[in-house]
């Protein structure tokens, strides 16, 4: 009897407490509401420049772009789906080229101390260069805007993957190598069955950083090179003074970047087998 009473009184306050996730979600909604309200009021009361659309107008436009992603009325009038596909194709192709250079080279310099020291000055000097600085060089070398975009993305994708691959390959747990040595495994077998799987989580985390940077860079590259893609769209809509389209594009670029990152996050978990980086 007294037990049930205590139980009830103990239970009651819990009905109105929220867990961390729920609290965070409410706070998120609050922040979102405040931002939208400020934006709407600012646009209507003329706090911003004349060009700035209201939040409600932007949301309507956003919905229009989203609900009809695959129309095609000529080169400068395509749905957001086509624009994204064009940019994604470029990024993935450039990223594949960059990775195809970075992973084998990373393995090589991870295995050979001499090669690592020889290549290190190149990496150290080229890594901090903004990818866009390569653009004019790409145009000069390749004379073609499409190849130049790929060239810039490829160069961008190299560094994080290269450095992570090198680290992963050269920091394989000594006890794994001791096992292969006591078994008398060949160099090739040690590499393919032990070193590469052990380095895989590092390689994938390099790829994850690389694709993130490549997605950052593609927008800038397309603005500069022109022609097609989501970056070119942003620039084109600026020339048409259509800020609503630009905001739409910004949100969609963000979402796609997030999805790419999550995809590589899944891949990372898939190759980790409980290992912590």
């Amino acid at each position, binding site marked *: 009897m007294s037990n049930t009473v205590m139980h009830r009184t103990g239970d009651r306050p819990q009905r109105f407490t929220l867990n961390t996730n729920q609290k965070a979600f409410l706070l998120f909604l609050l922040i979102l509401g405040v931002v939208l309200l400020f934006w709407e009021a600012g646009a209507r009361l003329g706090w911003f420049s004349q060009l700035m659309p209201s939040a409600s107008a932007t949301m309507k436009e956003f919905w229009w772009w989203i609900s009809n992603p695959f129309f095609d009325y000529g080169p400068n009038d395509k749905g957001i789906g086509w624009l994204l596909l064009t940019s994604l194709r470029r990024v993935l192709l450039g990223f594949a080229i960059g990775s195809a250079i970075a992973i084998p080279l990373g393995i090589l310099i991870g295995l050979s101390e001499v090669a690592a020291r020889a290549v290190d000055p190149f990496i150290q000097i080229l890594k901090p260069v903004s990818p866009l600085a390569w653009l004019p060089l790409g145009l000069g070398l390749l004379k073609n805007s499409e190849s130049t975009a790929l060239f810039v993305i490829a160069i961008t994708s190299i560094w994080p993957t290269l450095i992570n691959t090198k680290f992963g390959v050269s920091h394989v*747990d000594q*006890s*794994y190598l*001791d*096992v*292969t*040595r*006591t*078994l*008398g*495994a060949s160099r090739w*077998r040690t590499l393919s*069955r*032990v070193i590469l*799987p*052990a380095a*895989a989580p590092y390689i994938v985390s390099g790829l994850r950083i690389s694709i993130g940077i490549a997605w950052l860079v593609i927008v800038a590259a397309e603005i500069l090179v022109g022609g097609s893609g989501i970056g070119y769209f942003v620039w084109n809509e600026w020339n048409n003074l259509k800020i609503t389209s630009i905001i739409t594009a910004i949100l969609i670029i963000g979402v796609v970047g997030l999805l790419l990152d999550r995809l590589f996050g899944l891949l990372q978990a898939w*190759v980790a*087998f*409980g*290992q912590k980086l």
Partner: protein
Amino acid sequence: MTTHTSLIRTAAMSASAQLSVSNVSKTYFGKRDWFSRATRKATLDYTALEDINLEIEPNTFVSIIGPSGCGKSTLLNIIAGLSQPTAGTVAIGGTPINGPGPDRGVIFQNYALMPWMTVLDNILFAIETVKPKLSVSRRMAIAQEHIDLVGLRGAEHRHPHELSGGMKQRVGIARALAIDPQILLMDEPFGALDALTRGFLQDEVERIWEQQRKTVILITHSIEEALLLSDKIVMMTRGPEARIARILDVPFSRPRHRESLDQQAAYHALKAEMELHLSQETRAVEESRIRRKAASEA
């Protein structure tokens, strides 16, 4: 003169020995280049082992016990071929070794299982590497046999991160035995396990050893473990320049059981002797540390 007699002695004894360690010394050379000195990371040379001689007969279970840091792992790694002695040789069946090889199966304290391979794949990897000419079905049969031997039937397709420490070390044992080595080397294989699991695995090792009677070298810091499992116990002195202080014979009948072990004649005498040795050596290590600390602070 002394080297001469010791040479004769080793030559005479190695006739029946399966493994002979002759005059093995190991010095870890310090760093004294200008860069290490400038960054105050210079270290002195450290002689871990000095003139170790050890003969091991076939089908013997030998434990090595000594104060922590005396050089037990160093000695085992030299026998495994993973590390080179500064002087002396290790020979198996009279042939000096030069490097690691599948005639010696190693069981590691941290298990050293490949996380991306299942239990079965870890064992198959070892078999395939050592015996690439075996047929696939034969390899599978050997792997399954050893999985059964260590009592892991049903866990074949799990990955190491899904196993407890005790189960991981069972895989380690199965992998080492599956390549059918002449000698099994174990470096504190149960050191990372809780007391109960450690007891279970010791019993398992005793049971498996009764079946296979392979030559085993076990490094341990547990007196009970050494007494339960060994035919001979090698007691080492403290480092630097660690030597073998004494080799004890453990004449207990087999199979042995943990519960009735203390009823074996000589159990208490052996245990007391080992305790005395270990506590003396450990106390001396502590005292020299305190003295060194006081000297460096003065």
